[in-house]
């Protein structure tokens, strides 16, 4: 019998060659499996990444989401990493491959069983790791789990094992790995392909601002991109400056670049853009203030230059004295005084000469500082100096001509008595008055004489014409325009002086340490200042929609953030004109003006009590500056010297020693409001100034 011939006593050891052959085949199989699984895991993970990216791009195209290109790449890369991790972690061995081959090819565990006897160490079973107690090992175990395996208990070798191994090796020799692990285009691959196609389509899809309002569409199409490009340009200019080594400035320029890019993408609202610009502007201004002293000196030599110039005016000399002492604030005040004098124009000839001299010195100081804007400011100063000198000369001539007129006509007219016409050979004398734009006309042979400014002679005419604004008048007449059509404009001389005084003020502000920093010439850091200027310009542009008057909600001047604080408000949008003539702009925190009820709510935080109640600690100027007339661009605090002029005294009753307030605020409100109403009710107070006072009392009106 065959069964009797079978030797049971001596179990046959499996042949080494068969076992090795089986192992090689199964290793090949496992390698293919691992490759396929690796890509499968990556595809499976990237489905999510590409899907999220596609949704993100779609949301971007519909203006629902903003982001840079890397925000699309990030989820894809992250998912690819996760897929890579999973693919690496889930590697199969020869035993897994044998099991799969047995299952796939209906081999009834031949290969796996044979391998279990030839290579029992390959049979691995995952077992739980002991939980980590420390933080980082636990984190590593979560992120990069390292499974532990237990080797199965070896099974007893029996007489039929060699036959089993040989049978398995025989079948494994002809085994086709592709039959076991065919290349499949499974669900993950299909989904990944679909998501990739969708992502590509969304990327090349044009932007669809269907969900935006008309105003938002307009902003997204023109205003924000243009402003963003400008910001990027200045940021790039600063970044390209190789001499610039200040890390803070570089950082700010990067932020500016980022903001510019965001605005160019136009996925942010105008309000948000303005708020961010305002915040950035604040940071730039602060950085300019906080620049190290040596850096300041290096970048801003203007005060040093001014200190060494020969100044002739009292203010100029005092300024130099303060500069010597290092009192920048006092020096700045002296410059402002000089500017104020020039603005008012009540200077004697000698003072004008001195002021012109000082302006020229200041121009030299600015010019030495270098830079286009400095050059521009220097030119303004020089023009102002020139204008002052011309005025001085003309006043000298005016005195001479006045004497000539007396001799010729025997008459002398007082400039304050208005006009007087005479015959064809007579004289025409008049008073120009203080209002700009009023003019006197003279006949062909008449003379016109003003009390203040300028004198003009026309060729071929015998008359003289004197006006308050000689330069303008001359220009008007030369261009053939009627003087009446240019009512409200200033003469060229005045404009030059105005420009000079503005330049002086900016220099003063620069001396104070940057402040609002109106020009490059006054900046501690030219780069920072340039950034600051560009941000302001961009704010204006964005706030006014790029073209003042296009947006009905903008009053043209709303680009300025009152008090430098635009947080939470949109200049030009939230700040609506509160009076029908648009003379007074809205203020931050104030509701729309209701002419019957006054401002709705939202006080400006003007009083201490109001500040306590609302948390709004802005100063009065901060709140009301934007509501002043457009011609008054800046808040000036004019301090009088004690002992000069009249002093009004108001006696109040109260506890001189201080202490807790005994009279409630709401009890005195009406009294003070009435007094304020009476005071501003006078005709001498311009209407534009009345409204802020009224609004102020409305804002602090106690609730009943």
């Amino acid at each position: 019998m065959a069964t009797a011939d079978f030797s049971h006593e001596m179990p046959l050891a499996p042949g080494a060659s068969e076992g090795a052959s089986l192992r090689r085949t199964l290793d090949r199989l496992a390698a293919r499996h691992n490759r396929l699984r690796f890509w499968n895991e990556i595809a499976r993970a990237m489905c999510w990444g590409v899907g999220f990216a596609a949704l993100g791009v779609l949301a971007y195209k519909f203006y629902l989401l903003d982001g840079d290109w890397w925000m699309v790449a990030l989820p894809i890369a992250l998912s690819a990493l996760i897929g890579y991790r999973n693919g690496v972690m889930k590697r199969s061995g020869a035993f897994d491959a044998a099991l799969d081959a047995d299952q796939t090819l209906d081999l009834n565990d031949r290969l796996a069983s044979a391998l279990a006897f030839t290579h029992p160490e390959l049979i691995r079973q995952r077992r739980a790791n002991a939980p980590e107690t420390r933080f980082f090992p636990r984190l590593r175990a979560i992120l990069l789990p390292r499974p532990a395996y237990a080797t199965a208990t070896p099974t007893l070798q029996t007489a039929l094992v060699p036959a089993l191994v040989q049978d398995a090796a025989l079948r494994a020799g002809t085994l086709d790995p592709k039959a076991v692990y065919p290349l499949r285009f499974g669900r993950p691959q299909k989904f990944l392909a679909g998501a990739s196609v969708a992502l590509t389509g969304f990327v090349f899809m044009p932007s669809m601002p269907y969900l935006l309002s008309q105003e938002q569409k307009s902003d997204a199409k023109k205003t924000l991109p243009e402003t963003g490009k400008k910001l990027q340009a200045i940021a790039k200019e600063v970044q390209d400056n190789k001499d610039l080594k200040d890390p803070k400035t570089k950082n700010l320029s990067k932020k500016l670049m980022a903001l510019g890019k965001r605005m160019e993408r136009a996925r942010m609202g105008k309000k948000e853009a303005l708020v961010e610009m305002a915040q950035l502007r604040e940071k730039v201004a602060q950085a300019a203030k906080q620049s190290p002293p040596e850096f300041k000196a290096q970048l801003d030599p203007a005060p040093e230059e001014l200190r060494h110039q020969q100044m002739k005016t009292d203010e100029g000399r005092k300024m130099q004295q303060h500069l010597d002492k290092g009192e920048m604030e006092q020096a700045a005040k002296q410059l402002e005084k000089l500017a104020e004098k020039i603005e008012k124009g009540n200077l004697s000839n000698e003072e004008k000469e001195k002021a012109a001299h000082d302006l020229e010195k200041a121009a030299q100081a600015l010019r030495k500082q270098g830079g286009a804007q400095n050059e521009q400011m220097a030119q303004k100063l020089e023009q102002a100096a020139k204008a002052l000198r011309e005025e001085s000369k003309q006043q000298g001539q005016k005195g001479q001509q006045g004497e000539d007129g007396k001799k010729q006509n025997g008459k002398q007219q007082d400039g304050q008595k208005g006009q007087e016409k005479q015959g064809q050979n007579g004289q025409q004398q008049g008073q120009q008055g203080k209002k700009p734009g009023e003019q006197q006309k003279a006949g062909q042979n008449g003379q016109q004489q003003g009390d203040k400014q300028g004198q003009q002679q026309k060729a071929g005419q015998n008359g003289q014409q004197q006006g308050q604004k000689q330069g303008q008048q001359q220009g008007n007449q030369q261009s053939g325009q009627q003087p009446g059509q240019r009512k409200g404009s200033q003469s060229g001389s005045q404009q030059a002086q105005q420009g000079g005084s503005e330049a002086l003020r900016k220099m003063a502000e620069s001396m104070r340490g940057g402040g609002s920093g109106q020009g490059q010439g006054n900046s501690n850091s030219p780069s920072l200042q340039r950034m600051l200027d560009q941000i302001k310009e961009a704010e204006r542009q964005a706030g006014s929609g790029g073209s003042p008057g296009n947006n009905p909600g903008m009053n043209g001047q709303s680009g300025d953030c009152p008090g430098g604080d635009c947080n939470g408000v949109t200049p030009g949008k939230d700040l609506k004109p509160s009076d029908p003539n648009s003379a007074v702009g809205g203020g931050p925190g104030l509701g729309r003006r209701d002419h019957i009820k006054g401002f709705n709510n939202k006080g400006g935080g003007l009083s201490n009590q109001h500040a306590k109640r609302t948390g709004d600690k802005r100063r009065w100027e901060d709140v009301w500056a934007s509501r002043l007339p457009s011609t008054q661009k800046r808040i000036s605090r004019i301090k009088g010297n004690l002992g000069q002029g009249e002093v009004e005294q108001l006696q109040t009753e109260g506890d001189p020693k201080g202490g807790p307030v005994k009279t409630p605020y709401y009890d005195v409100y009406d009294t003070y409001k009435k007094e304020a109403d009476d005071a501003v009710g006078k005709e001498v107070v311009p209407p534009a100034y009345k409204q802020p006072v009224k609004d102020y009392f409305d804002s602090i009106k106690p609730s009943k």
Partner: protein
Amino acid sequence: MTFKFKIQNSKFKIPMEATAAVNDFVTRVNAIKAEMANVIVGQDMIVEGVMMCLFGGGHVLLEGVPGLGKTLMVRTLSQSLGLKFSRIQFTPDLMPADVTGTNIIAESPEGRKEFQFQAGPVFTNVLLADEINRATPKTQSALLEAMQERSVTVAGKTYKLEEPYIVLATQNPLEMEGTYPLPEAQLDRFLFKLRVYFPTFEDMIQILNRTTSSDTQEVNNVMDAATILEMRRLVREVPIAPHVQEHAVRLVLGTHPDSEYATEQIKQFVRYGSSPRGAQALLLSSKVRALLQHRFHVAIEDIDFVARPALRHRMILNFEGQAEGIDSDQLIDDLIARHAPAVSA
């Protein structure tokens, strides 16, 4: 079994000894089947199950309604094997001594009276315990030692039973009055519990033709006890890989309601699961089945194949399970499905 690829030229050759042994094993089993098929119509799976028990060294509990040929099958098997055959008709008044035998007083040739052991019907090779559930548990328990230890102890003296020894018991699942359900310990000693199903239409025609005519089929003796023992040794030489063995263990542990491998249904309807004898039954019978499939090793498929008959009588349903009429086979199928190996992605 069809393979998806053809065996090409290979330098390896399967040992002729092993191949011949397995082929011989299959041939001999087929010979027994053929002899039984001369008498028994249909019931191929039952016959194969009985073969597995015979060569696995276990006992069989045949469950079926009367008249399905259970007794005939057992008698035919014993005839084809050429083994000694005994039949015990279990009745309620049957006593253990009637099964095991007893000491009687007998007179020796010298005239002395002495106790002499009178062997019971249990001393045989093939024992048919017909309608085993009609006897009291006390009598049923008389078979416990014989089935497990292959020995009988009477009056303090142990008598070894002759190998091969196999008990084939039958019981009627419908007629419950006057019956005594087999105790768990008794049930556990059966390798398989085979359910004899009603014959098909064609089988019925053939049964009628055979049993109602004058043509009687002779059963030839195709095997002897020594061959059976040799084949049993071959069965035990069949290797089983660790992962296959673990599959069997998972199935056995899964029959317990408090096991992590159990299905929800088992947790709900089973009171107690299989003993380790169940795992032994799984492996031994699956080894026979592997050989019958011309294989040198046990596959998971073999384990699953024999899981029903090997485990169904080892799962004790709780009250809810009995009230719901839960079938143990269904629970086992769910268990197999849960632990089925899958191709990794």
